């Protein structure tokens, strides 16, 4: 509720000095200098954040590129390239006032024209998610060099959350305007406005970023250099952290089984923070169209059959939360009254008996993202088999997984999605029937059709009154809870491991993907 409360008035929000925030998290003053060694996995396909949106790219390039805003761990917007901003009372006009004297890494000045180019031209063409958000935008204008105005077609409350660096990175107009964005040679040497500049990339080995000496925030960044080490093997990454070669293990760098041990090392700290913006949420796609999973009773049986606490405790080291329903508890729109399906195999068996499940085998598609997910699918298979569901695992790689989901060729499939800060950004896409289309593993893959849910989601997105909106979202959660279009597993806790003498590593809700601007090493 906090975020919405803050946004409700549509008041002009003045910037806070980010220096105040960071000072609070350490007793001593930041010490400048030093090199930080960080794991990166998998090796990013490229570092041009406007073109490539996957996690490793964002993690590295989040230090090179910037957007207009950042978000704290409560998802409150903070100034970045925009010093301040206002939202009109009708919720349709967003005006941003840009920071003065910002320069691209090549020395060219950063202006409002760059913002218009980035949002209106570049990202509309290259970034499907931004493209979807920009559907709400009628026009983007730059009245002067320091001001940008976004005018929306209708109110869209979550719009203020769109100015995260991965969603809306600012790209240099003077380099990209009029070129083929994807083949522009600058993609191999990315130019941004961020606190670190790209220096070198030895493929398969290391990416080096060095301090931007002309950074517009005085004194920052503190670090001289970031080295991103490409180590393809999780156990090797763990060993490297253990022997001191690495100082930071970003989320997903090591297998979950290794985390308790690594966090128990001397001078080793762990934090779950930094996931708030993305809000990763694990679930099982259930194919609602055909097979046993087309029967809601079967789907409920799946929910009852699963021992999700076991998964959380054994596979996720107790981090994260068992999902109670379709909405993550991190979301303001989450309905606290929903209790969630308990682990109740008997009830599952009863439901199966009631629907007359005939032992037709169901195919289970694990997520090919490492060992935890493999183990998890083994656990789920075992849970399902113990209530009498016959399961065949179809193991495949990333391409196969995408292909099968995009072609709806599955019965039950693991996935996890970012729910972001608002249901309209991250949740509705999974359930609205207009989003049923082959070809993407991220839309309404399960094939759920409910006109009422469609209507509620559409109205809630543009409803400017938080109370009315919440009522609609409560209704949606109740319907989905009963229908079980997909099986909700967990709100994932992705921990970052780091040496305790590294301070202010994670200061925003975007975590490491938002850069090392404030980080410093105590010596």
């Amino acid at each position, binding site marked *: 509720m906090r975020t919405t409360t803050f946004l409700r008035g549509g008041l002009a929000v003045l910037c806070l000095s980010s220096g105040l925030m960071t000072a609070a998290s350490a007793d001593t003053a930041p010490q400048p200098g030093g090199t930080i060694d960080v794991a990166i996995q998998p090796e990013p396909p490229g570092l041009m954040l406007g073109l490539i949106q996957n996690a490793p790219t964002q993690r590295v390039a989040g230090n090179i590129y910037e957007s207009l805003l950042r978000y704290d761990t409560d998802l409150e917007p903070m100034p970045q390239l925009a010093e301040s901003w206002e939202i009109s009372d009708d919720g349709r006009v967003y005006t941003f006032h840009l920071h003065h004297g910002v320069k691209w890494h090549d020395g060219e000045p950063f202006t409002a024209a760059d913002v218009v180019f980035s949002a209106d031209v570049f990202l509309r063409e290259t970034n499907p998610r931004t493209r979807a958000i920009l559907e709400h935008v009628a026009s983007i204008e730059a009245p002067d060099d320091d001001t940008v105005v976004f005018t929306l077609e209708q109110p869209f409350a979550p719009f203020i959350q769109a100015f995260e660096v991965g969603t809306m990175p600012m790209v240099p107009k003077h380099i990209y305007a009029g070129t083929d964005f994807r083949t522009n040679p600058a993609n191999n040497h990315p130019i941004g406005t961020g606190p670190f500049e790209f220096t070198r990339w030895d493929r398969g080995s290391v990416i080096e970023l060095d301090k931007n000496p002309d950074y517009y925030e005085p004194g920052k960044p503190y670090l001289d250099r970031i080295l991103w080490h490409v180590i393809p093997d*999780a*156990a090797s990454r*763990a060993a490297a952290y253990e022997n001191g070669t690495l100082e930071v293990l970003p989320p997903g760098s*090591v*297998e979950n*089984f*290794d985390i308790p*041990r690594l966090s128990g090392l001397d001078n080793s700290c762990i934090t779950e923070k930094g996931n708030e913006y993305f809000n990763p949420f694990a679930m099982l796609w259930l194919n609602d169209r055909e097979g046993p999973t087309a029967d809601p009773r079967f789907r409920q049986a799946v929910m009852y059959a699963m021992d999700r606490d*076991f998964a959380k405790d*054994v*596979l996720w080291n107790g981090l994260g939360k068992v999902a109670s329903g379709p909405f993550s508890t991190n979301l303001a729109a989450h309905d606290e009254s929903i209790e969630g399906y308990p682990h109740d195999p008997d009830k599952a068996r009863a439901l199966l008996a009631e629907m007359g499940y005939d032992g037709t085998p169901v195919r289970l598609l*694990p997520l*090919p993202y490492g*060992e935890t997910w*493999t*183990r998890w*699918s*083994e*656990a789920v*298979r*075992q849970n399902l*088999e*113990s209530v009498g569901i016959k399961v*065949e*695992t*179809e*193991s*495949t*790689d990333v391409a*196969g997984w995408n292909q099968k989901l995009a072609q709806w060729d599955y019965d039950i499939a693991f996935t996890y999605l970012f729910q972001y800060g608002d249901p309209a950004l991250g949740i509705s896409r999974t359930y609205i029937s207009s989003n049923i289309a082959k070809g993407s593993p991220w839309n309404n893959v399960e094939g759920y059709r409910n006109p009422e849910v469609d209507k509620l989601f559409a109205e809630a997105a543009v409803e400017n009154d938080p109370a009315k909106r919440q009522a609609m979202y409560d209704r949606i959660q109740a319907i989905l809870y009963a229908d079980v279009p997909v099986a909700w597993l967990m709100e994932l806790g992705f921990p970052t491991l780091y040496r305790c003498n590294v301070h202010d590593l994670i200061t925003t809700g975007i975590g490491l993907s938002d850069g090392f601007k404030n980080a410093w090493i105590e010596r």
Partner: protein
Amino acid sequence: MSFFRRFVQNRGALVGLVILALVVLLALLAPLLYPESPWRMVQRPFLAPGELPGFPLGTDTMGRDVAAELAHGAWVSLLVGFVSTLVALAIGVPLGALAGYFGGRTDDVLMRITEFFQTIPNFALAIVLVAIMEPSIGSIVLAIAVVSWPPVARLVRGEFLSLKHREYVEAARLVGQGHRDLILKQILPNTLSPVIVLASLMVATAILLESSLSFLGLGDPDTMSWGYMIGAARTVMRQAWWLSVIPGVAILLTVLALNLVGEGLDDALNPQLARQR
């Protein structure tokens, strides 16, 4: 001296045979000893061997009984090892036989194909094949067979090349036996002993290959195998070293046993060579 007497005189071969027999026994008894699925999570994870009665080898990361996994894994390892070897023989023996027997253009074509398969790095090809067909027992067996038949073809071809000019083959030709009889009755039986020796070593290699594929995550997700166990235990090597050591030793012993048996067979089937050792 009979074949059997020569074989059992070789102490290594006997030891190998005993180990192999134990592994086979374990594989056969697995469904009786551990009738439940080896995937069942039965206790808390990371029990050390002997920590709790009833779990002589402890439990793994998910609280599954390692002893049950090992027993069921034996079955898969042996199955993959033997079946893929049989498939490889089924490809390699006829190809080698035809190439060696007919020679000339047939030989040229068949050997080009063989060379071709030997030019692609084996393990890489196996990975590609499994990835394409998606991991399952069938695809793994096929992939291993596809990469391991060329040596069989070469061996059989070599034997055929040397045997087809043997006087007894020529004699059989003279009395009017056709190609089929010459190949099947005259030559093939005499190539069997080196093929059997090679096959026993191939089973060992196939088991290693399967475990390597499983280790890379390209194993059949529904079957418990030793390679899978090592791969799964890899990340917890330091908390629970026994989880990777136990299946590793199992593979080691089985492969070792197969090699010893293979050497024993070699010695027993080729008595002249045996005397050298």
